[in-house]
């Protein structure tokens, strides 16, 4: 980490106020632990808890983990519950876009920063100064995904399969735009409801359109099903998937051979990294939770760590933390975070690929400031 950056980070954090010893931070963790995002919600929770453990000795963290399930009303209930005793310093907020959209006005009213890894573009497009996204948004990762398809793989006839959820539709919109800019044609596109289990019909439709690459924007379970059935049907196309396909829990559903030729975008891939700090973090994570970490856990860790750094630097309340996050720069484990003015803190992306021999992906490409937003 260059010394100038370190100085910049410290300077930014000091904006929040002078350093104090024995500061208490209240950071409730509101994440989906039940429902179709339970896997990702657990990663969020684990990343936050690990960051609490690693907090500076001068900072005492009070936290409560509350399940937000998958409905906006549950998220609002959780937010109200988290505020019932004392004003939170910041809130670890769910990654589900519709829940985040419901929480934005509540955070504005309560003057509490929301620290999230939600990928839904709209949450930082509503001019709300209290939201901070530590996972690269669709503008970043979809650009990286499309650029890898066109620039690295040299493919221009794209089959696009996406989920008919907020995540899927948002990614679909960005991918179509970026492919158009890059001169690639989307020759077939198909929306899949989360309840769809049999991927054979959509794969048949894809094959009939004669694409030269299959691009996915699916949740974890659907990604695994589609990749498995594509391998079984001998589709013979390179697959470049969304971030769900980088998650160890998703990959565990597949045999290594089924993963040959499959790539995925992500903000990071902690288990693929060689950097000593990340390797230590991965070891700590495995020891603490007995599961493999993913990029959501790492991003949430970095986000909470940046908040705690601000608290350690003297940020006492939500407003002070917000100012520190909005103006600061933080060298996290996954990347360097800084706000683009709208609350988007992460601007880098990676493409990881599987070689078919094991379930650990290799970083095939890194995109720093992929969409030029950072």
């Amino acid at each position, binding site marked *: 980490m260059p010394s100038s950056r370190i100085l910049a980070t410290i300077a930014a954090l000091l904006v929040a106020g002078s350093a104090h010893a024995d500061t208490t931070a209240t950071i409730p963790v509101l994440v989906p*632990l*039940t429902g179709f995002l339970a896997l990702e919600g657990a990663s969020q929770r684990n990343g936050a808890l690990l960051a609490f453990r690693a907090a500076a000795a001068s900072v005492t963290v009070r936290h409560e*983990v*509350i*399940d937000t399930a*998958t*409905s*906006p*009303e549950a998220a*609002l*209930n959780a937010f*109200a*519950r988290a*505020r*019932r005793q004392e004003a939170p310093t910041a809130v670890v907020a769910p990654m589900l*876009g*519709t829940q985040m*959209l*419901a929480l*934005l*006005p509540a955070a504005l009213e309560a003057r509490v920063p929301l620290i999230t890894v939600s990928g*839904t573009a*709209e949450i930082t497009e*509503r001019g709300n100064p209290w939201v901070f996204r530590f996972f690269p948004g669709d503008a970043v990762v979809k650009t990286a995904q499309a650029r890898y398809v066109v620039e690295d793989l040299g493919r221009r006839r794209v089959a696009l399969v996406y989920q*008919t*959820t*907020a*995540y*899927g*539709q*948002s990614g679909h919109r960005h991918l179509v735009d970026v492919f158009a800019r890059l001169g690639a044609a989307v020759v077939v596109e198909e*929306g899949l*409801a989360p309840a769809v289990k049999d991927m054979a019909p959509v794969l048949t439709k894809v094959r009939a359109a004669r694409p030269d690459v299959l691009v996915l924007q699916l949740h974890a379970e659907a990604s695994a099903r589609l990749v498995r059935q594509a391998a079984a049907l001998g589709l013979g196309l390179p697959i470049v998937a969304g971030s769900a396909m980088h998650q160890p829990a998703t990959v565990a559903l597949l045999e290594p051979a089924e993963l040959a030729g499959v790539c995925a975008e992500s903000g990071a891939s902690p288990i693929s990294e060689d950097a000593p700090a990340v390797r230590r973090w991965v070891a700590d994570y495995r020891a603490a939770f007995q599961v493999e970490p993913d990029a959501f856990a790492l991003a949430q860790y970095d986000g909470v760590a940046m908040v705690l750094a601000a608290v350690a630097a003297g940020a006492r309340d939500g407003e002070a933390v917000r100012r520190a996050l909005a103006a600061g720069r933080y060298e996290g484990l996954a990347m360097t975070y800084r706000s683009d003015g709208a609350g988007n803190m992460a601007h880098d992306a990676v493409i990881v690929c599987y070689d078919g021999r094991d379930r650990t992906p290799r970083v095939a490409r890194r995109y720093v400031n992929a969409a030029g937003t950072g």
Partner: protein
Amino acid sequence: MTRPLLWFAEGIRLPLLFAAGALAAFMLPLEASYPVRLLTQVGVYALLGIGYQFVFGLAGAFSLAQGAFFGVGAYVAALAALQWDWTGELTLPAAVLVATAMAALAAAPVLRLRTHYFALATLGIAQVLFVLAVGWIDLTGGANGLAGIGELMLWDQRLDGRDGMVFVWILVAVVGLLLYQVRRSLVGLAFDLVRTDPFAAIAAGAPAARLRFAAFLASAGIAGLAGALQVHSIGVVSPEVLDFDIMIRCLVVVVVGGVARTSGAILGAFVVVLVPEWLHALEGYRLLVFGAVLLATILFAPEGIIGTAERLRRRWLPGPALPRPLATLRAPGRSLLATTRPVLSLERVAKGFGGVVALEGVTLKVARGEIFGLIGPNGSGKTTLVDVVTGMTAPDEGRVVVSGEDLTGRPPSVISRHGVARTFQTVHLHPDMTVLDNVAAARLGDLPGGPLGTLLAIGTERRLRRARGEAAAILEALDLAAVAMRPGGTLAPALQRRVELARALARNPELVLLDEPAAGLSEPEQAHLAERLRALKTRGLAMIIVDHNLGFLLGLADRVACLDQGRLIAIGTPEQVRNDPDVVSAYIGGGIAARAAS
């Protein structure tokens, strides 16, 4: 006091006031956002549940579209607020109207179905709306939905936080009282029959189709209102509001709380919203424990919490006394004008089921004050003829004329209103309803003002009291006063048959069709029944009696007709028919009859 105030005031009871007062005393001092939010949400789900009580609780139709109408209300309110800056005084009525209109459109094809077919069709409505919400991105925002919907405002008055909660609960009180009033009215008794035994409903002359339609629309409108309140409460709407999860919560609200009851819906809403909140400390095991709580409730209190409490109350506390008989009901055979016009005229009636001819060219007339016996071997078409006359089966050919009016193919409720009542070969009584109410329900629509007047007078206890008084008079006349307050299902079969006769008489009919009224009766009971029927005949009531007991029937009837394989083979006095060779042949076989004659 004005009429509407009276209408509501008559529904107020001390426990209701106490419960409402206790709830208000608990809620009003609340300031913190967490309890206010939870109680607002409880109110929204209570509204949704109360709405569902109309279609599921009252009408007994297992609709799976209630969650979808909730979502429709939410989307309508959101779109109106975002696109036209409408506030609550317009968004709430718009949500109710659109949801009700959609229900009215869906009702035509869907309400014809029954049981699981109805459930699947309504599930289809929900699925279509969900797909539209996800796919029509320009209008609905797609899977992200719509955000930025403001808190509830009514005529520039912002109702946020506690004010919003109070407003939601005022609506719960109004809609809840509506359900309460309907349930305890004569219409409520009719709904009980429609839900429990459609044949009993037909016998009581209840307009089942109209009641189901009204209940379906009321449910949808209230669900739309709840959806609109929800969207103003949370500020966003997304396809999750149309998801099956909402429907499941709605079912849990009414099943756990208690079916068909306002208090059940409110209690169920508390359970659905608050219990998961209380179980937060269990984290991952929360849903498991919540599921176990629900399962235990359903296993040990299958009628719901309120239903179980009512059952215990009935067991431990004395029931209401038999009301004073009201002799205001005119004697059966209400058109006592001297006329030679037959009460019933069948002209060349034919009916087939596939290749089986059930009736063929049947022509007969029944005069006022006549007891007309109908005999024939098993499968000869007797019950089909009764069904055709009462509208339960439409004839393929011919005409059914009642008191000079052609009622061919008209529904049972219409024919019933023209003075035709019936009993069944297999008794159809509401087993849990008192004998008195089984009979009183048949007065629906026959009180002054007709069906419309009765519907408009929902909850006016005076009407229910009058119907019960009239029912008590009929029961007394049939020596049934001693069992009037017992549930219909607890009576011996012979008594149940007599209750069916009482219910038919409560329709104030001109013609009664009795299907096997003497079945299972002892000889003294048969004699008693015959005596009663003769008394009714003297008051101008016409009767068609189908019975296999020829001794009973031939001794009672003025004229008798015999059916064989759907054809009328003999008609005349009991003596003529008894000696008719075709009748003998039909009953004991052609060869045997010939040998007996020789």
